[in-house]
């Protein structure tokens, strides 16, 4: 399997009047063809920023601080806007969170899809229309011929997200960044969109970066999972490893907060405290203040990534051989398979 997307020690900051905001810190991962990598974490941990920065869709005060991004073997870290325009949609595309706002409300769906085709593929009107119909069928929209001429407000949320997906898939991208594509939808529609994503992956072999804060959704779709906290990946591994052998206290916290686990005790658990502001982060581990297992060293030095298996690693001092052996909380170990 070829590697399609590779991040090496990628850090991204925003230049703001109040100082530098470190939104993404030292993120590394690889994504292979046809693979689905989920990035999970609380709101404000930098998931969306990471995603948008890969396509360079961020405001101008964002800058890459270090590291690089390789897309299909090409280093795109320093690509100009002009070069990025050629890559967008063709190599890497994106689906956004809220399908109610990502489509232009006044332009018919067909035109919006064809715009992508005519722009990226340089198709003529007829060819673009034929391909738009094909795409609408791919994303399982019934009666595509009639719907091409309709404006987005005739569509339900799920259908709009399908249309956005059709636009993203227009030029056969290798990587699809899905930024919480199901969060704004209701649960039954969510499930259908997830199934659709899986079936599209099967048909096209596209690789997915799937961003979500919903571990239930992630369990259903992801091959691998990266847990992000305060702009950093704190644990990464296969879905099995993250769900059944989590090592980072933050991952324990996230899993413990799943409503499915609350049933036995009848109350919802949460991780105490709030994620830190990404402006002027403290030294040491950003999670230390919320971590009930924090060690003294957590406040002084940020933990490196400890490798647990070739696919699984986590950034917590608990994995250091010198650290006290701490078992994950019982509620995490005892729980039912998801």
């Amino acid at each position, binding site marked *: 399997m070829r590697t399609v997307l590779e991040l090496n020690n990628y850090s991204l900051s925003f230049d703001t009047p109040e100082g530098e905001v470190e939104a993404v810190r030292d993120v590394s991962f690889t994504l292979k063809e046809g693979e689905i990598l989920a990035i999970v974490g609380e709101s404000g941990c930098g998931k969306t920023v990471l995603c*948008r920065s890969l*396509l360079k*869709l961020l405001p101008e005060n964002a800058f890459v601080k270090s590291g690089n991004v390789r897309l299909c073997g090409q280093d795109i870290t320093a690509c100009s806007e002009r070069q990025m*325009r*050629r890559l*967008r*949609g*063709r190599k890497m*595309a*994106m689906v*956004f969170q*809220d399908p109610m*706002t*990502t*489509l*232009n*409300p*006044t*332009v018919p769906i067909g035109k919006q899809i064809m*715009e*992508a085709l005519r*722009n*990226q593929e340089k198709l003529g009107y007829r060819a673009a229309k034929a391909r738009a119909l094909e795409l609408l069928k791919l994303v399982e929209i019934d009666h595509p011929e009639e719907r091409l001429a309709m*404006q987005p*407000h005739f569509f339900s949320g799920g259908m709009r997200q399908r249309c*956005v997906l059709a*636009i*993203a898939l*227009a030029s056969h991208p290798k990587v699809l960044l899905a930024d919480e594509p199901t969060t704004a939808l209701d649960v039954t529609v969510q499930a259908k969109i997830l199934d659709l994503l899986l079936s599209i992956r099967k048909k096209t072999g596209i690789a997915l970066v799937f961003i979500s804060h919903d571990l239930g959704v992630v369990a259903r779709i992801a091959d691998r999972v990266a847990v992000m906290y305060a702009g950093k990946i704190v644990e990464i591994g296969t879905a099995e490893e993250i769900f059944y052998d989590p090592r980072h206290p933050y991952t324990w916290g996230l899993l413990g907060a799943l409503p499915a686990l609350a049933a036995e005790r009848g109350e919802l658990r949460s991780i105490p405290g709030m994620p830190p502001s990404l402006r002027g982060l403290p030294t040491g581990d950003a999670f230390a203040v919320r971590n009930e297992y924090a060690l003294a060293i957590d406040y002084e030095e940020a933990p490196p990534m400890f490798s647990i298996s070739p696919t699984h690693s986590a950034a917590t001092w608990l994995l250091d051989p010198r650290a006290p052996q701490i078992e994950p909380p019982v509620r995490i170990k005892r729980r039912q398979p998801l």
Partner: protein
Amino acid sequence: MLILSVVVFYFARWAPGDPLQSFYGDAVESMSSEELAAARSRLGLDAPIHVQYVRWLQGALHGEFGLSLKYKMPAMRVVSPLVGNTLLLGTTAYLLVFLLATFLAVACALHEDTWLDRLICKIGTAVYYLPPFWLGVVLVLVFSIQLKWLPSSGAYDVGKAGDVFNRLRHMILPLTVMILSHLWYYGYMIRNKLLDELRQDYVLLAKEKGLTKRQIVWKHCLRNVAPAIVNIMAISIPHVLSGTYIAESVFNYPGIGALSVASAKYHDYNLLMILVLITGALVILSSILAQTVSEIIDPRIKETGVSAWQR
């Protein structure tokens, strides 16, 4: 319209001054009080105001708008040749204002927060606050008196009423004043609307499609802002119209604006009334027109009563 006519009718008559002065000119000074009373009753000015109003209204409903006191002919005949002049000047200015405003706004939106945007904003604001009267006088001084390039007043030279080029030359200075004094007010509004649109999520998707910022602004944002522009245009008709009236007065351009000012000054009640009614009708018609156009551009307005940009 009816309310408007009542209000203006009463206010005009409350204003100090004697309409006979404008009817008879200086001859009033030498008239005896009996003669004055006779003149008043002949012109119907001696009755109580409400009686005068009912009389006027009866006439107006039959298309009789009474006699102009100053010009001593039916008010309608005084006004009708001038309506065309005003409409020509007003419409041209109006369209140019919004055309230029849109271009400026797009230029600013494309270069948001660069020197170009800031420069346009600063100059635009400074120019907008120049008083149009003063601006008019300065323009006349420079271009008519100093450089002798352009005529300072009138709509056309004597005997050249049909000469398009001659008419255009007379319109340049009034147009300049009107455009400069309205342009940035609307340009800035449209600029901000465009910037709001540029923050919308669909812009990200459009960008993700590989469109340039220029394409996004022209094809997506401007289209979505269009109903808002049309609405602003509708609301602004009275504003631009009042600008026309000022420009007409400054440049002595024979239109209904200059005439309105004159008729109010000379207590030419019947003339004033018809001018007010024409102005009112224009405003109402333009609102209806704007609503229709917005509905065509953004079909959601018709369904929900609010347009997208109000949500």
